[in-house]
Protein backbone atom coordinates (compact mmCIF):
# COMPACT_ATOMS: atom_id res chain seq x y z
CA UNK A 1 0.00 0.00 0.00
CA UNK A 2 2.78 2.37 1.00
CA UNK A 3 4.68 1.48 -2.15
CA UNK A 4 1.59 2.17 -4.27
CA UNK A 5 1.16 5.60 -2.64
CA UNK A 6 4.82 6.42 -3.21
CA UNK A 7 4.62 5.43 -6.87
CA UNK A 8 1.44 7.50 -7.31
CA UNK A 9 3.10 10.49 -5.64
CA UNK A 10 6.19 10.24 -7.85
CA UNK A 11 4.04 9.92 -10.99
CA UNK A 12 2.00 12.99 -10.02
CA UNK A 13 5.14 15.03 -9.35
CA UNK A 14 6.65 14.07 -12.70
CA UNK A 15 3.45 15.04 -14.49
CA UNK A 16 3.21 18.33 -12.62
CA UNK A 17 6.86 19.13 -13.40
CA UNK A 18 6.42 18.31 -17.08
CA UNK A 19 3.31 20.57 -17.22
CA UNK A 20 5.23 23.65 -16.04
CA UNK A 21 6.10 25.36 -19.31
CA UNK A 22 9.34 27.32 -19.48
CA UNK A 23 8.64 31.06 -19.47
CA UNK A 24 9.06 32.69 -22.86
CA UNK A 25 12.06 34.99 -22.90
CA UNK A 26 11.18 38.40 -24.31
CA UNK A 27 13.58 41.30 -24.84
CA UNK A 28 11.77 44.64 -24.60
CA UNK A 29 13.29 47.97 -25.60
CA UNK A 30 12.22 50.94 -23.50
CA UNK A 31 12.76 54.64 -22.98
CA UNK A 32 12.98 56.91 -21.02
CA UNK A 33 14.39 56.16 -17.60
CA UNK A 34 11.84 58.28 -15.78
CA UNK A 35 8.56 58.03 -13.95
CA UNK A 36 6.80 58.01 -17.32
CA UNK A 37 7.91 54.36 -17.65
CA UNK A 38 6.83 53.42 -14.11
CA UNK A 39 4.17 50.79 -15.03
CA UNK A 40 6.83 48.82 -16.89
CA UNK A 41 9.40 49.20 -14.09
CA UNK A 42 6.83 47.91 -11.60
CA UNK A 43 5.90 44.98 -13.83
CA UNK A 44 9.56 43.96 -14.03
CA UNK A 45 10.36 44.61 -10.37
CA UNK A 46 7.27 42.80 -9.02
CA UNK A 47 7.74 39.88 -11.46
CA UNK A 48 4.31 40.45 -12.99
CA UNK A 49 5.48 39.21 -16.39
CA UNK A 50 6.45 35.85 -14.88
CA UNK A 51 2.83 35.39 -13.73
CA UNK A 52 1.87 35.48 -17.39
CA UNK A 53 4.53 33.10 -18.64
CA UNK A 54 7.08 35.69 -19.74
CA UNK A 55 10.69 36.32 -18.79
CA UNK A 56 11.14 39.96 -19.83
CA UNK A 57 14.63 41.34 -20.38
CA UNK A 58 14.38 45.16 -20.36
CA UNK A 59 16.88 47.00 -22.56
CA UNK A 60 17.19 50.77 -22.37
CA UNK A 61 17.45 52.78 -25.59
CA UNK A 62 18.25 56.47 -25.90
CA UNK A 63 14.99 57.37 -27.63
CA UNK A 64 11.95 56.18 -29.53
CA UNK A 65 13.53 56.31 -33.02
CA UNK A 66 16.19 53.84 -31.88
CA UNK A 67 13.59 51.48 -30.41
CA UNK A 68 11.45 51.67 -33.55
CA UNK A 69 14.47 51.00 -35.78
CA UNK A 70 15.45 48.01 -33.64
CA UNK A 71 11.94 46.54 -33.86
CA UNK A 72 11.92 47.00 -37.63
CA UNK A 73 15.32 45.26 -37.76
CA UNK A 74 13.84 42.33 -35.86
CA UNK A 75 15.95 42.83 -32.72
CA UNK A 76 12.92 42.37 -30.47
CA UNK A 77 9.18 42.24 -31.05
CA UNK A 78 7.74 44.62 -28.43
CA UNK A 79 8.93 48.11 -27.59
CA UNK A 80 7.88 50.92 -25.26
CA UNK A 81 8.00 54.04 -27.34
CA UNK A 82 6.35 57.37 -28.11
CA UNK A 83 3.18 57.25 -30.18
CA UNK A 84 4.29 60.10 -32.44
CA UNK A 85 7.33 58.09 -33.53
CA UNK A 86 5.12 55.13 -34.39
CA UNK A 87 2.92 57.38 -36.51
CA UNK A 88 5.99 58.79 -38.31
CA UNK A 89 7.19 55.25 -38.88
CA UNK A 90 3.80 54.26 -40.29
CA UNK A 91 3.86 57.25 -42.63
CA UNK A 92 7.25 56.01 -43.83
CA UNK A 93 5.68 52.62 -44.63
CA UNK A 94 6.42 50.48 -41.54
CA UNK A 95 3.91 48.00 -40.08
CA UNK A 96 4.50 49.10 -36.49
CA UNK A 97 1.29 49.60 -34.56
CA UNK A 98 0.34 50.71 -31.06
CA UNK A 99 -1.22 47.90 -29.02
CA UNK A 100 -1.50 49.75 -25.72
CA UNK A 101 -0.82 53.14 -24.12
CA UNK A 102 0.15 53.85 -20.53
CA UNK A 103 0.59 57.64 -20.60
CA UNK A 104 -1.72 59.58 -22.91
CA UNK A 105 -1.50 63.15 -21.72
CA UNK A 106 0.96 65.98 -22.14
CA UNK A 107 2.51 66.36 -18.71
CA UNK A 108 3.68 69.92 -19.38
CA UNK A 109 2.12 73.04 -17.83
CA UNK A 110 1.97 76.62 -19.03
CA UNK A 111 3.68 78.62 -16.25
CA UNK A 112 3.95 82.42 -16.14
CA UNK A 113 5.65 85.07 -14.03
CA UNK A 114 3.56 86.81 -11.38
CA UNK A 115 1.59 89.60 -13.00
CA UNK A 116 0.49 87.47 -15.93
CA UNK A 117 -3.01 86.51 -14.80
CA UNK A 118 -4.43 85.03 -17.98
CA UNK A 119 -3.36 83.61 -21.32
CA UNK A 120 -4.67 86.81 -22.94
CA UNK A 121 -2.08 88.76 -20.92
CA UNK A 122 0.62 87.05 -23.02
CA UNK A 123 -0.13 89.31 -25.97
CA UNK A 124 3.12 90.98 -26.91
CA UNK A 125 5.09 88.99 -24.31
CA UNK A 126 8.00 86.53 -24.73
CA UNK A 127 7.73 82.71 -24.57
CA UNK A 128 10.43 80.05 -25.23
CA UNK A 129 10.33 78.11 -28.44
CA UNK A 130 10.97 74.50 -27.32
CA UNK A 131 9.82 72.50 -30.36
CA UNK A 132 6.91 70.60 -28.87
CA UNK A 133 5.74 73.50 -26.76
CA UNK A 134 5.63 75.63 -29.88
CA UNK A 135 3.55 73.03 -31.65
CA UNK A 136 1.20 72.72 -28.72
CA UNK A 137 0.63 76.45 -28.72
CA UNK A 138 -0.07 76.44 -32.42
CA UNK A 139 -1.36 73.06 -33.45
CA UNK A 140 -2.48 74.37 -36.81
CA UNK A 141 -0.06 77.11 -37.72
CA UNK A 142 3.72 76.58 -37.78
CA UNK A 143 5.47 79.14 -35.57
CA UNK A 144 8.52 81.19 -36.41
CA UNK A 145 11.03 82.16 -33.80
CA UNK A 146 11.50 85.87 -33.19
CA UNK A 147 13.67 87.93 -30.96
CA UNK A 148 11.83 90.14 -28.48
Amino acid at each position, binding site marked *: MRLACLVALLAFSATAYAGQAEPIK*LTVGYSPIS*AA*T*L*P*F*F*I*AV*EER*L*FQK*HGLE*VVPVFFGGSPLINAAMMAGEF*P*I*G*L*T*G*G*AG*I*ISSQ*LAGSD*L*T*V*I*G*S*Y*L*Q*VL*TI*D*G*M*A*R*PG*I*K*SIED*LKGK*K*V*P*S*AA*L*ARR*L*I*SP*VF*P*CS*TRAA
Partner: protein
Amino acid sequence: MLDSRGMKPSEVAFIQAGGVGESYAALANGAVDAAMIGYPFSLKAKQAGFQLLFRPPDTEYGLYPNATIAARESWLKEPRNRKIAVGFLRAMNEGLHLSKTDATVSKKALRRYTRVQDEATLQSTFEFFQPYFPASLRTIEKAMANAIKFLDHPKAKQLDPKLTFNNSFVEEALR
Protein backbone atom coordinates in the same frame (compact mmCIF):
# COMPACT_ATOMS: atom_id res chain seq x y z
CA MET B 1 -2.30 77.49 -25.05
CA LEU B 2 -2.81 80.45 -27.35
CA ASP B 3 -5.17 78.53 -29.62
CA SER B 4 -7.40 77.75 -26.64
CA ARG B 5 -8.05 81.51 -26.31
CA GLY B 6 -8.34 82.19 -30.02
CA MET B 7 -4.92 83.86 -30.09
CA LYS B 8 -2.44 83.56 -32.93
CA PRO B 9 1.30 82.76 -32.58
CA SER B 10 2.02 86.14 -34.17
CA GLU B 11 0.63 87.81 -31.04
CA VAL B 12 3.54 86.66 -28.86
CA ALA B 13 7.30 86.70 -29.37
CA PHE B 14 8.93 83.26 -29.38
CA ILE B 15 12.49 83.00 -28.06
CA GLN B 16 14.60 79.96 -29.00
CA ALA B 17 15.33 78.13 -25.74
CA GLY B 18 15.98 74.43 -26.25
CA GLY B 19 14.32 71.79 -24.04
CA VAL B 20 12.02 72.14 -21.05
CA GLY B 21 14.98 72.60 -18.68
CA GLU B 22 16.21 75.54 -20.71
CA SER B 23 12.68 76.93 -20.90
CA TYR B 24 12.42 76.83 -17.11
CA ALA B 25 15.79 78.57 -16.80
CA ALA B 26 14.60 81.28 -19.19
CA LEU B 27 11.44 81.76 -17.11
CA ALA B 28 13.38 81.78 -13.82
CA ASN B 29 15.87 84.43 -14.96
CA GLY B 30 13.22 86.67 -16.49
CA ALA B 31 14.21 86.15 -20.12
CA VAL B 32 10.63 85.11 -20.95
CA ASP B 33 7.20 85.85 -19.47
CA ALA B 34 5.73 82.35 -19.74
CA ALA B 35 6.81 78.85 -20.72
CA MET B 36 5.43 75.34 -21.29
CA ILE B 37 7.50 73.16 -18.97
CA GLY B 38 7.39 69.59 -17.70
CA TYR B 39 7.98 67.82 -14.38
CA PRO B 40 10.08 68.37 -12.28
CA PHE B 41 10.61 71.92 -13.60
CA SER B 42 6.90 72.71 -13.42
CA LEU B 43 7.00 71.79 -9.72
CA LYS B 44 10.09 73.98 -9.19
CA ALA B 45 8.31 76.84 -10.99
CA LYS B 46 5.24 76.47 -8.80
CA GLN B 47 7.41 76.42 -5.66
CA ALA B 48 9.23 79.55 -6.86
CA GLY B 49 5.94 81.43 -7.13
CA PHE B 50 5.24 81.24 -10.86
CA GLN B 51 1.61 80.94 -11.88
CA LEU B 52 -0.14 78.06 -13.59
CA LEU B 53 -1.72 79.50 -16.73
CA PHE B 54 -2.58 76.43 -18.73
CA ARG B 55 -2.82 72.72 -18.00
CA PRO B 56 -3.19 70.76 -21.26
CA PRO B 57 -4.69 67.63 -19.62
CA ASP B 58 -7.64 69.82 -18.61
CA THR B 59 -8.34 70.64 -22.26
CA GLU B 60 -8.79 68.92 -25.62
CA TYR B 61 -5.13 69.62 -26.35
CA GLY B 62 -3.86 67.50 -23.50
CA LEU B 63 -4.40 64.05 -24.95
CA TYR B 64 -1.17 62.84 -26.55
CA PRO B 65 0.40 59.37 -26.94
CA ASN B 66 3.36 60.05 -24.66
CA ALA B 67 4.15 56.41 -23.84
CA THR B 68 2.89 53.45 -25.82
CA ILE B 69 3.49 49.75 -26.36
CA ALA B 70 4.21 48.91 -29.97
CA ALA B 71 4.87 45.86 -32.10
CA ARG B 72 4.96 44.93 -35.75
CA GLU B 73 1.68 43.77 -37.30
CA SER B 74 3.56 41.04 -39.18
CA TRP B 75 4.71 39.63 -35.81
CA LEU B 76 1.36 40.07 -34.07
CA LYS B 77 -0.62 38.13 -36.66
CA GLU B 78 0.96 34.81 -35.58
CA PRO B 79 -1.33 33.18 -32.93
CA ARG B 80 1.63 32.32 -30.67
CA ASN B 81 2.82 35.92 -30.77
CA ARG B 82 -0.65 37.26 -30.11
CA LYS B 83 -0.69 35.21 -26.90
CA ILE B 84 2.68 36.69 -25.93
CA ALA B 85 1.42 40.21 -26.62
CA VAL B 86 -1.74 39.66 -24.57
CA GLY B 87 0.26 38.20 -21.68
CA PHE B 88 2.59 41.19 -21.84
CA LEU B 89 -0.34 43.59 -21.72
CA ARG B 90 -1.91 41.77 -18.76
CA ALA B 91 1.29 42.28 -16.77
CA MET B 92 1.58 45.90 -17.91
CA ASN B 93 -2.03 46.51 -16.91
CA GLU B 94 -1.25 45.25 -13.41
CA GLY B 95 1.83 47.47 -13.32
CA LEU B 96 -0.31 50.40 -14.45
CA HIS B 97 -2.81 49.78 -11.68
CA LEU B 98 -0.04 49.69 -9.06
CA SER B 99 1.52 52.89 -10.43
CA LYS B 100 -1.78 54.61 -9.63
CA THR B 101 -2.53 53.00 -6.29
CA ASP B 102 0.59 51.78 -4.49
CA ALA B 103 3.12 54.40 -3.42
CA THR B 104 5.39 51.84 -1.74
CA VAL B 105 5.71 49.63 -4.81
CA SER B 106 6.01 52.66 -7.10
CA LYS B 107 8.78 54.28 -5.08
CA LYS B 108 10.67 50.97 -4.86
CA ALA B 109 10.66 50.71 -8.65
CA LEU B 110 11.60 54.37 -9.10
CA ARG B 111 14.48 54.00 -6.67
CA ARG B 112 15.88 51.07 -8.61
CA TYR B 113 15.49 52.44 -12.11
CA THR B 114 15.93 56.21 -11.76
CA ARG B 115 18.55 55.94 -8.96
CA VAL B 116 16.74 58.73 -7.10
CA GLN B 117 16.85 57.95 -3.37
CA ASP B 118 15.37 61.06 -1.83
CA GLU B 119 12.07 60.07 -0.23
CA ALA B 120 10.39 63.46 -0.70
CA THR B 121 11.27 63.52 -4.42
CA LEU B 122 10.03 59.96 -4.89
CA GLN B 123 6.77 60.72 -3.10
CA SER B 124 6.12 63.91 -5.08
CA THR B 125 6.96 62.07 -8.33
CA PHE B 126 4.44 59.36 -7.48
CA GLU B 127 1.80 61.98 -6.61
CA PHE B 128 2.53 63.98 -9.76
CA PHE B 129 2.13 61.09 -12.20
CA GLN B 130 -0.64 59.26 -10.34
CA PRO B 131 -3.54 61.20 -11.93
CA TYR B 132 -1.92 61.13 -15.37
CA PHE B 133 -1.66 57.36 -15.72
CA PRO B 134 -4.85 56.13 -17.39
CA ALA B 135 -7.32 53.63 -15.95
CA SER B 136 -6.47 51.13 -18.69
CA LEU B 137 -4.04 50.57 -21.52
CA ARG B 138 -6.68 51.28 -24.19
CA THR B 139 -5.30 53.80 -26.69
CA ILE B 140 -7.49 56.88 -27.08
CA GLU B 141 -8.14 57.89 -30.67
CA LYS B 142 -8.08 61.62 -29.87
CA ALA B 143 -4.55 61.24 -28.44
CA MET B 144 -3.31 59.75 -31.71
CA ALA B 145 -5.23 62.42 -33.66
CA ASN B 146 -3.46 65.17 -31.69
CA ALA B 147 -0.09 63.59 -32.42
CA ILE B 148 -0.91 63.46 -36.12
CA LYS B 149 -1.88 67.16 -35.98
CA PHE B 150 1.57 68.04 -34.60
CA LEU B 151 3.48 66.16 -37.29
CA ASP B 152 5.14 68.11 -40.12
CA HIS B 153 4.57 65.44 -42.76
CA PRO B 154 2.86 65.86 -46.15
CA LYS B 155 0.80 62.66 -45.66
CA ALA B 156 -0.19 63.35 -42.06
CA LYS B 157 -3.46 65.12 -42.87
CA GLN B 158 -4.76 62.09 -44.80
CA LEU B 159 -3.92 59.58 -42.05
CA ASP B 160 -6.92 58.14 -40.22
CA PRO B 161 -6.03 57.98 -36.50
CA LYS B 162 -7.99 54.71 -36.19
CA LEU B 163 -5.39 53.00 -38.38
CA THR B 164 -2.50 53.85 -36.05
CA PHE B 165 -3.48 51.59 -33.16
CA ASN B 166 -5.20 48.30 -32.33
CA ASN B 167 -7.05 47.92 -29.02
CA SER B 168 -8.08 44.31 -29.62
CA PHE B 169 -5.05 43.03 -27.70
CA VAL B 170 -5.88 45.15 -24.65
CA GLU B 171 -9.53 44.08 -24.83
CA GLU B 172 -8.44 40.44 -24.79
CA ALA B 173 -5.99 41.13 -21.95
CA LEU B 174 -8.70 42.73 -19.84
CA ARG B 175 -11.15 39.81 -20.24
